[in-house]
């Protein structure tokens, strides 16, 4: 399906309004994870975010572990402010996924 609208010349906001009521992530009950998935690791809480992220990937049938460095930031706004420091009239685009 092709895009049905042309880009408006000036817009001010585009956040999925459904996000406002987006449910927060719910933990899988502990008893259903450990036995079912021996390698299961819960997403960390904000207070204990590690500075590395260990993930697994696949090369054919071979499962390998990769560790990525992670930079902790306080907030998304702080991150954007630092990255775009001093810049004005920025244009943003959000790819929603309803």
């Amino acid at each position, binding site marked *: *399906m*092709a*895009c*049905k609208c042309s*880009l*408006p010349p*000036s*817009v*001010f*906001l*585009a*956040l*999925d*309004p*459904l*996000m*406002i009521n*987006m449910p*927060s*992530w719910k933990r899988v009950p502990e008893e259903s994870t450990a036995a079912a*998935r021996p390698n299961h*690791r*819960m*997403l*960390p809480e*904000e207070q204990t*975010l590690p500075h590395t*992220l260990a*993930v*697994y*990937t*696949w090369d054919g049938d071979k*499962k390998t*572990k*990769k560790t*990525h*460095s*992670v*930079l*902790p*930031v*306080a907030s*998304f*706004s702080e*991150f*954007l402010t630092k*990255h*775009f*420091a001093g*810049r004005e*009239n*920025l*244009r*943003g*685009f*959000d*790819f*929603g*996924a*309803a």
Partner: protein
Amino acid sequence: MTTIFSGVDYTGLERDRLVVENAWRLGFPVMECDVQAVDSLDSFRCDLVTMFRPHPSDVPSLVSTAKRMIEPHGLIAISLKAEDMQDLIVGKRFLDERLPVADFWTALSGFSVLSIKERCVGDLPLFENPYLFAYSPRGLQGFELITLK
């Protein structure tokens, strides 16, 4: 009006017509478009492209399009759904039942990984998980990061 970042004029895109209609009723300028058919955006240039809770199988094509849209100093930011991030950490072979994990990491080559302590932006709980994938053609400014390979 709540904004994700007060310095950015934002445009949105959704594939679901009902979401688009609801958005316009609420005053949000969101366009209806199949995210797999976004070549028409190639002439659109912007500073910030965000993807919150994308379908994993859409990510490779969206990243490809976003990299064509983004200004050299711009930024692409991706936050996955909690269960998709969980699948990455656990090491499932496929995301979204269609996308091999290896293809996901290939699509995100050059991205950096950040962790966001505050998951809300204003009153909006935008982040379902603490991790954010970010990319800028000229590198992230204000940070020294190791990029994904």
